[in-house]
Structure formats: C-alpha cells, structure tokens
C-alpha cells in the first residue's frame, strides 16, 4: 500500500512549503497541547507492528500485529503507561490488520482468513483459531493486504481488500483474484457478500453511531489524495481494477483498463484529506466517549501513518449524503495505523510502518489523553449556500476582519497517475463575517462556493475573547453538493485527459541497493534493517529486523563505498539522521555533499556558499530524498584538467538547495588528486546515518573503453546488427562469434526468471552471463556464473538497459568485461580460456522473455 518511493516521487511534484508546515517541532507542540501522548512499553526486544486493537470489558487491551501475533495487555489503562503488562495471546497468524472484540469474543482478520480466537482453558493463551471465512482470492502478491474489522448491529463484519502491485508497471493496481479492490461483508456464519467496489489501498474502516460504514483509501492511481468514503452497498469508489468481478465485466470477459476510466457511476468521497495532512490514512473511529475525550463528541478521528498524526473529521449530511470538514488534531505521535477508544475515554494509537515509511516510532502503542482543558479550536463547520457557519469552542469578543480570512477553492484530477496535485485554484473573496450573541458561532460569507470543489478556509491569527490563539487555524471542506440549487453530477475528482503512458521510471538507472542491499558496496559496520529514533534519546537509533535502510550501526563503521566506478551521474537516495547526525556523500571519493542534522548545512557542498533553502531539511528522524546531478572533472590528452567537477540541481524532497556548484578540487576530507572515474561513498565514521534506495543513472561519460568502441565504426571490425526484436520465453538465439568479440545492445527482461547469455566453444562449458531480474534469484543480471555474482537487483524487469559485453585475449588469459548502462560491473581474467570462439546462445527464461533492440556484434 504505502510505498515510500512513490510518496517521495509525488512529494517532489507537490507544494513542499505546505507539506513542511505539517512538521512542527514536537517539543514546541507538547507545551500547549491539550492532548498528551503516553507511550506504552512493549516487552524488551519485541516489535509490535499494530494492525488492530480492541478492549475487553475489563479494560484489557488486545493488539493484533503484522507479525501475526495478538498481544494481551493488562493494565493498559493504568496511570503509569509503563505499568502495562504484555503477553502473547496468539502466535502464528498470517498478519492481523483488523481486530474486533464483541463482549468476550475475539475476532481477527488475517491476510487470508477471518477467524475467531478461542481460549478454551482460560489461561489467556489462544488454543483454537476458528475459521469464519477464507472466501476471497489471493495470488501471493505482497500488496494483497486485508483490513478490518468493524461490525454492524447484526454482527456482520466489514473488511477491505487491497489490489495487488506488480512489476514492472507497479503504479497500476491490479485485481488478479476475486474481490481484490472490494469491501466485503462477512456474516457471523461466514457468508461473504461483496459490498462495494473500486477501492485501492483501503487501510482502514470505521462505523459511526448511526451504523454508517466509512473507509479511508490511500492516494495513488485513481485516488488523488487520501479520501474518506461513506460506504453503501453497491458503491463504486473509482479504482477500476475491481470491476473485473462485477456481472457486466465477467459476462463480457472484460478486464478493466488500467488507464482509461470506467464508465461506472462513481461515489464521491465524503472528505478529501489534503496531501499535506495525510499521505497514508489508516482506520477511523467515532468519539462516543460522552465528553471524556474533549469537546468533539460524535466526530471521527483518523489514523495517519506517514506524517505520524491523528486527524479529525466532522461530517454533515447535505442533500442526503455525507460530506464535511477535516482538521488537524494531533501531530508528532508516530506511524499511526490504528486508532481505538478505550473504556476510559482515552484514544489508543497503534503504530506500524514496516515497508511503508512513516514517522517514528514505527511500532508500539501510545494513548492520547485529554487534559480536561477545552482548547480554543474550531469545533465544527456547517456549509451554507453563501458561506460557512463555524462553531468555536470558545467565544470571540468580536467578529474578525474579512481580510484575516483566506478562502480558496480547488479540485483534483481523477486519473491513473499516482496521486493528484490540488488543481484549479481559485481565491474566494470573504465578503462579511458575523458573530452570534454568545460569540461562539462565526458566520463567514463568501462568493463563489460551488459543488464538486474542496474549500480551504484559514482564520489567520484568530484569538478567543480570553486571548488564546486558535489551536488549528485551517479546515478543508469537501463540497459534493451545495445546500440548494440543482444537484451536481460533477465530482471533486475530475475526469481529465489521462497523462502520457509512463515508461519504467527505472530506465537508465541502476538500483544499487535493491535486492541484497549491501552487495554493491564495500563496507564494515553497516547493516540492512528497519530503523527509527530512540524515543528516549533522539540522538540514538534503534534498529530492528527489516529492509528499510542501510545503517552504520557497528562500533567502528567504515565508509559505504560503491564497488563500481562512476563519472557523470544523476543520483537519488533517501536518508534519515538522528539528532546531531552527520554524514556525507563523497562523489568520486572526493567531492562531498553534506548530510547533516543542521538545517544550514544539509545537502550543501563543503566550501560552496550555503544552501538556498533553510527549510527543506525537516529535522532528525525524518526521511528525506535527495536528487541531483554530478559531473566528473574533464582532462585533456595530457591529463591536464580542462573543467572542474560540478554539482547541479541538488534538491531535498523536491526543494532546490543548490542550483549549481563547482568545487575547484577535492573538498575537505576527500581523496587528493582528481580523476575521471572513481567510486562514491557515504561517510561512515562521522556520525550515525540511515541511507536508503540508492540509485545512480550514469550520464554521458561512460567508461571510456565502451564509448570508444561504440563510436568505432571504421575498420574490419565493423559492428553488425544481429538481433532486433523480442525473444519469447523458452526461445533461444544462436550467434556465431570469433574468440575475441564485442556484443552491445538494449535489453529488457519481462517479469520471469532465468534468462541467460551463454558463450561457449565446442565441448566446453564456456561462460554463463545471467540475465534475471526476479526478486528471489540468487544470481541477478550481470552475474557470471562461477566467477562473479551480483545479488543486487540493479535493473528491475520491464526496464530497458544497455548491455555491453567484451571478450578479448590478453597475456593473463581471456579477459571478459560486462557493462550495464555504461558502468562496468564485471571484469574477469580466465587463464583456462574456457571460451575459444564458436557460439553465443541467448536463452529467454521459460516463464518470462526478453526484448532486444539493436543487438550488435563485432569481431575484434
């Protein structure tokens, strides 16, 4: 569901100034927060990745986790949050992203099964996992999560099923098995009824006291932002993949298009949560505490994972359908995936972010408690034909000036691209303000409100009669319908021209840390793990099992040095630093791009006048994406430098930090001397650093030998094109070659294992170059069996790459080199000369295939 790489891609496209406003320093906030956050302490060493929470009548908390456990927590409501005692009630489930307690009965939703957990002998350990239903399809795709688990008055369960994501076009969610992309109703007897279609990544459901069901989706294809939908039987929420299992599509044998919108009537989302407030929404729960949790009874709280917050939504029925407002509620909590009210009226939040990314802590449980002081905040809003009624929790002494109120309209694109920016902005003039006699109801009038638009209203610098500043000054309201006038048939998510088809965004890139993340680096003291800041001491990191980051967690870590040499490159990587953290990316082992927990330095170049943006770096514990280009220095034939090394367009989360910089020589700490080609490294000894998803796209000056050979069209060794089309799975091509040769072409692997290029002489084994992009292959593209293995997934399936192979005789033996996208990944000298001219065999793997463009060959 919540793919960080995608999110960061979108982050670059969206307004970052707004996004950054979401991250206030938590210290600054705690001071005047009416809601405190208290963290429970799971048993030492245990990782509690929360997927569901519920309370027994006696106040004991049960927590289901993505590790397939259910924890039983006694004293969860005790005054001291550390007094809570944890034990494992159930082990061995297949995830648990939904939990429901009905009286004493405990239900859990696993990835493939809705189950009741039964303790027969009263020892608080589950003895029996009773299957209620398994009646939905799964293919084994990682993204096929199942979420739940509210029930209605009749005891029916409601659950939602993700669509799958397949490489290479991972951005198109696909429903390959029945009811992926649906919300299902499951009766207590296990009868499954497909309830509503068109969902994408529906991480959370919730039911209000009126018995109406709601769910949140996650922004992505067909979901411009994270929406909150009211779910009624037969609804279609907009993601077309699920339609495959409807009558019309099945009768016609049709599979929904991934790029063309379906012609089915879409349900409008009740609330569209703006991107800066929610990037990965979880479940939602209504405040039925009768005032124990503050003044917002009857409204719903929504878990938000990436930003680590809880947000608040208040809906009203307009023309018979829910729509309404969304407010910020509490920031700086952790990767909140689940929210649940405890019997004492506190709001429990459950964390997880493994593989999804989100604010630390990434696992565990915390409770939000109200301090009993009513904050000065907007309580609720009500849409009028010409404005809004805004109910405040405290009285104003006078109506504010119209100039202090900002109002703007916008909408979203409904398309297959990942998310949508806010579109078609339009400022609205606030023409009048009016205050009720008790000072608590502020009416604002503005022209131009219309259906099928979202509205942002900001009350700037508003203070209560007693001088308190407004806690949250902005709300967004989704207008599906105006109170009066003709009913709108438009939606806030507007049908627009679809974007141009995407080519694989991996094209030209080398994913140096995919697959075996450390395989392409020389290092000691670095590990692949999940990581977050130590709650008690943010200058420290806490690591745990996972694949989220490369961390120099060892005692005396080395630098993380690339095994390959690079010249001009475009680059992209993620990083996160602890408080006071310090590292750097040294291009060519010489030119440092600083990574520092210091706003003024981060993403700057040593010796180059400082970063332009002082807000792009968002602080310790936050993951950032750095993008940019680096150009190696140039030399003439005599080795004299003719041009300095250069940095260009260095950006932090899409915010430009350095336009261009030209170090005249190695920066501080860099290796002396300058060269044309060299490895890069991340500094390991200066401080702790977490690095992720390191990608390099070689530009221009590829390895000189390759460049020279490719431009060499003269002589007897002329290139000839030998192959220029696809090769189906299981097929092979044979080419006659001399002992010394070069082969060069563009290759794309379809998703399927084990293609290969063999070159062998009569009766000899020869060599086997592996062409395999599948995730679980031990030898991946670029490996030479028996000589050199590559375990990193440099080039995913579905992506064109340049393959260059050269085999020449040398004094020491047969020298073979392999370049991928112009970078040399293999150089072997074989004294035995296992290949002595004869034949090349290009074998396409059985379940996949190869696409080949302009495969050229020449003898040497």
């Amino acid at each position, binding site marked *: 569901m919540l793919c960080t790489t995608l999110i960061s891609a979108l982050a670059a496209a969206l307004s970052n100034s707004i996004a950054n406003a979401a991250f206030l320093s938590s210290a600054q906030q705690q001071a005047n927060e009416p809601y405190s956050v208290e963290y429970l302490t799971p048993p030492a060493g245990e990782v509690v990745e929360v997927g569901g929470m519920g309370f027994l009548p006696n106040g004991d908390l049960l927590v289901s986790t993505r590790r397939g456990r259910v924890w039983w927590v006694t004293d969860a409501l005790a005054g001291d949050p550390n007094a809570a005692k944890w034990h494992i009630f159930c082990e061995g489930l297949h995830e648990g992203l939904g939990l429901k307690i009905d009286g004493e009965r405990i239900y859990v939703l696993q990835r493939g099964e809705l189950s009741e957990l039964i303790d027969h002998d009263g020892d608080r350990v589950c003895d029996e996992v009773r299957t209620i239903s398994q009646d939905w*399809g799964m293919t084994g795709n990682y993204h096929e999560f199942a979420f739940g688990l509210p029930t209605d008055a009749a005891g029916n369960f409601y659950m939602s099923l993700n669509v799958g994501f397949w490489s290479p076009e991972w951005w198109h969610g696909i429903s390959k098995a029945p*009811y992926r992309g*649906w919300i299902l109703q499951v009766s207590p007897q296990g009868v499954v009824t497909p309830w509503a279609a068109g969902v994408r990544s529906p991480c959370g459901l919730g039911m209000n006291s009126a018995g109406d069901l709601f769910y949140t989706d996650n922004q992505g294809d067909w979901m411009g932002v994270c929406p909150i939908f009211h779910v009624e039987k037969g609804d279609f929420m907009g993601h077309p993949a699920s339609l495959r299992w409807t009558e019309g599509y099945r009768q016609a044998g049709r599979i929904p298009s991934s790029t063309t919108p379906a012609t089915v009537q879409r349900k409008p989302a009740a609330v569209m949560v703006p991107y800066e407030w929610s990037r990965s929404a979880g479940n939602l729960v209504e405040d039925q505490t009768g005032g124990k949790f503050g003044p917002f009874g009857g409204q719903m709280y929504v878990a938000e994972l990436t930003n680590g917050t809880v947000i608040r939504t208040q809906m009203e029925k307009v023309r018979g359908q829910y729509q309404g407002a969304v407010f910020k509620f509490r920031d700086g909590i952790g990767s909140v995936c689940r929210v649940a009210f405890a019997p004492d009226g506190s709001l429990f939040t459950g964390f997880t972010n493994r593989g999804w990314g989100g604010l630390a802590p990434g696992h565990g449980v915390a409770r939000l408690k109200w301090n009993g002081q009513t904050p000065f905040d907007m309580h609720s809003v009500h849409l009028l034909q010409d404005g809004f009624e805004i109910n405040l929790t405290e009285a104003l002494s006078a109506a504010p000036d119209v100039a202090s109120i900002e109002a703007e309209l916008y909408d979203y694109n409904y398309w297959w691209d990942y998310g949508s920016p806010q579109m078609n902005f339009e400022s609205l003039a606030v023409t009048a303000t009016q205050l009720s006699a008790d000072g608590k109801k502020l009416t604002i009038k503005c022209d131009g409100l219309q259906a099928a638009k979202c509205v942002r209203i900001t009350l700037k610098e508003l203070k209560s009669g007693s001088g308190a500043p407004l806690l949250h000054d902005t709300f967004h309201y989704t207008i599906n319908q105006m109170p009066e006038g003709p009913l709108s048939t438009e939606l806030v998510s507007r049908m627009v021209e679809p974007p141009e088809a995407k080519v694989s965004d991996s094209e030209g890139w080398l994913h140096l840390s995919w697959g075996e993340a450390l395989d392409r680096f020389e290092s000691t003291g670095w590990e692949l793990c999940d990581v977050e800041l130590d709650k008690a001491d943010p200058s420290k990191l806490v690591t745990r099992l996972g694949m989220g980051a490369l961390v120099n967690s060892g005692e005396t870590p080395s630098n993380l040095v690339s095994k390959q040499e690079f010249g001009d490159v475009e680059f992209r990587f993620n990083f996160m630093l602890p408080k006071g953290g310090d590292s750097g990316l040294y291009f060519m082992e010489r030119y440092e791009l600083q990574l520092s927990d210091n706003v003024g330095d981060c993403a700057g170049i040593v010796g180059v006048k400082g970063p332009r943006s002082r807000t792009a770096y968002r602080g310790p514990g936050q993951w950032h994406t750095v993008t940019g280009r680096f150009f190696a220095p140039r030399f003439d034939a005599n080795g004299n430098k003719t041009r300095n090394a250069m940095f260009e367009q260095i950006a932090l989360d899409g915010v430009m930090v350095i336009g261009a910089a030209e170090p005249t020589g190695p920066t501080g700490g860099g290796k002396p001397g300058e060269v044309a080609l060299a490895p890069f490294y991340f500094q390991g000894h200066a401080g702790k650093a977490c690095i992720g998803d390191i990608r390099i796209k070689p530009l221009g000056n590829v390895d000189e030998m390759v460049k020279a050979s490719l431009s060499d069209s003269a002589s007897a060794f002329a290139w000839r094109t030998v192959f220029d089309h696809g090769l189906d799975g299981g097929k092979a091509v044979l080419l006659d070659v001399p002992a010394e040769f070069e082969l060069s072409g563009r290759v794309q692997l379809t998703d399927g294992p084990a293609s290969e290029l063999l070159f062998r002489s009569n009766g000899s084994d020869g060599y086997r170059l592996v062409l395999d992009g599948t995730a679980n292959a031990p030898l991946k593209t670029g490996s030479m069996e028996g000589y050199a293995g590559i375990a990193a997934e440099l080039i995913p399936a579905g992506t064109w790459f340049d393959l260059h192979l050269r085999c020449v005789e040398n004094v020491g033996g047969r020298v073979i080199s392999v370049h991928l996208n112009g970078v040399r990944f293999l150089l072997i000298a074989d004294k035995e000369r296992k290949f002595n001219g004869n034949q090349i065999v290009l074998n396409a793997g059985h379940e996949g295939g190869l696409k080949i463009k302009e495969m050229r060959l020449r003898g040497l």
Partner: protein
Amino acid sequence: MPLLHLTQILCSALAALACTPEPQEPAARSGKEIYLGTCAVCHGDTGDGNGLVKFDRPARSFQQGGFSFGNTPEALFRTVSSGIGGTPMPGFAAVLNEKERRLVVEYVIALGPEQPPAAGNASILNVGSKPVVVRGQLAPLKSGASELPRGLMIGTTDGLSWQYQADDVRLLAVRQGAFLDRKDWGGRGGGPLQPLGKLMHLLQDGEPGPSFMLQASLDTGAAKKTGSAKDTGADNGANSAIQARRALYSKLTSTLVTGQRAEVRYALMKDAVFTKQAALMDSSVAPQSTQPGTAVANVREWGEAFSHPSAAGFRRHFEVEGVAGKRPDLLIALDIPKELNGPSELVSNRGQTWVWFPWQGRAIAYGFQIEGIPFAMMLEGEDSRLLLPAGNGVLKVHMTTLLLPDAKAETWSKLQEEIY
C-alpha cells in the same frame, strides 16, 4: 552381529534405564560428568559423534554444531528429555532430572562452535513445550508450481513439522528439525514462510490430490453428472466408476492445540465453494454472497512422530464423522505412491489390526489401522490413492509412514515383527 541388532540391544538397555520409576536424588554431577556417563557412549567423549557404538544413522557430532531439532537450549532440552523418534536416540526424562538435563544441554552446546548472534535469527520460531500453528504463504514444493498464498505450518513437540495447504486442506510434506523462519516479518510483508526442517517426506511431489471423495452412485447430484459423461461417450465402465467419484473440498474450520496435539479440522464440502478463482469465473451471475455450502462430514486430523528404534516415521490420525450420521458413500482417499500395487500384508495382533504396504525396492512402508468398519470393506486402490469407506459413524484412521533403514525385504519383515 548385524548392526540393527546392536541398535536394538543398546536401545533396549537405555529404555530399561528409562523405565526406572524414580530418578535418583541428584548427585552433584557436572554437565561434563553427566555427558561422559550418559551420552559419550554414542556421541564420543569429545562430542565428535564417534562413540563406542556405531549406528546406521550415525550419532550427531556436537563439534560441528548441527542439531536435528534446533540448537536452542529449549529445543535441546526437549530432545534430551523425549528422544528422537525413529532414531536410536532415547529420551532421558526418567533417567536424568530436569537440572541434570539442563546441565548436559549446556555442556553439549559448549562443545559446538560459537553460536551466531541471535539478532539475525529474530524471526525464527521454535517449538517449545506446546505445538505451534502458523498460517502464512508458502513457496511451492515442486519447482515451477504456483505459490500457496494460504499455507499452514504446524510444529509438533516431537520435532516434526507439518506443511499444509490451508484452503482445500491437504498435507503436503512432513519435515524434521528446526521449525520455521518467518521471513514475512521482513520488508513490506507478503513473503513466504521459510520452513527450516529437513524434508522427511513429500506427498505426491508436494501436489497431492483431494483427500476425500463421494461415491457418486449413491449421490443423486453426482450420479447425474456420471450420466452426462456417458452421454458424451467419454468412457467405458471402468472409467465411469472413477468419474462417478466426486472430489470433496476440504474447508478449513479450525486449528486447535490441545495438549501435545495440534488438530486441523475441516469440513468436507459437497457444493462448489469459493476460493478458487476458476470457480468464480465459471459463474455468470453477478457478485453475490458465497454460500457456506453443504458439509458432508467433519474431519479432525493430526500427526505425530512414530517412534521405533530402527526406523524414522510419522503417523497421521483422522477422525471422520458424517454430518447427518452415516455416509456410506464417503471415501477417504489417502495418498500412497503410484508405484505401489496394493495389498499388502494383513496382520492382526494384540487386538490391533494393521495393513501394511511395504514398497518393494524402496525404503518405505505405509501402514493403516482403521477403527469403525469391518475389515472386509476396507481396501480399494485407485491411481495413487487408497480409498476407504469413511462414512460409517465416526471412523478413525491411523496411517503410519515408516522410513526404513534400507530397502531389503528382510529388514522389513524384522521390523514388522518388532512393531507388533
């Protein structure tokens, strides 16, 4: 003296020890002393596996650090206490008190190489004092087969693990040794579980057929099907008998741990049941509620190691109960290798009835004990399955798979005598 007999004698001696009613008050012996006195005769004074006594299945070398059933103190304690079924390793629970067993475990671990740090094994599940049931995705057992999105792994305290498909329940494989690495705890989730046990037995190449069938001649719905098959001229008499059988879908209803037993419970469903994509695609109706279907019978199934000094093995137990009383049309179809041409040897002894299928030329034998039906009705072979009428009230079937030390006929006949 043949090797086998030596094993027997030794083990009888140890077993006799094991029968001593009260363990002696603990003399203060060190782990080393206990080891030298109790273990070294087979495992060697230095733990190298070269003791005075030699076996077909050599005693474990502790110096190499490998342990059949996991290398945690808890796992070793279990092995020392209970022994390893099917091997000469007896249990010492009655010979050594708990403290002594823990001491010897500590000593044995110390004989081995240094343990890797535990952090890397954080996702490994071990079986402690109770069976562990785990649901999750499983990689196919046969290369090229599809993944099992719904899998079930059961680790029993006797050191075996049982690998199931959890939709249309079928046992796929039995393993021996360490239990499971929850690889799905890493990354973004959704990966397969990694069973750690050594493959002991694979059922039908890891792709067994349905375990239960209905005899269609006694079932009107299926009888119609047979009729239509004939209309299309598809068969002769023999074939129609086969076609007249309808596979039943084994729908998981529960997994239950009770004492040392981990039961898999499922209902045998006559009607089409959802979960297979194909079944849904056949239908031309709109998405509608799935029907719970009609259960013919309910089954409880569990497995355990079968202990015999000279052969490793395991037993599967089935209890089948017709939903509406007797179902004479119900057949249980137990997988046996295609190469086996039934019967067999019928042995009745000490009030127990066994039917054995020794596999000529292979070191394996299958034994059946059936309670609840007269023997005369018992056996009918079909393809690679043994069909038993199963619907006669509560039927209890115990199926033993014995992996023999060798494929010689005499080994088998000796063993057979020993078993009764």
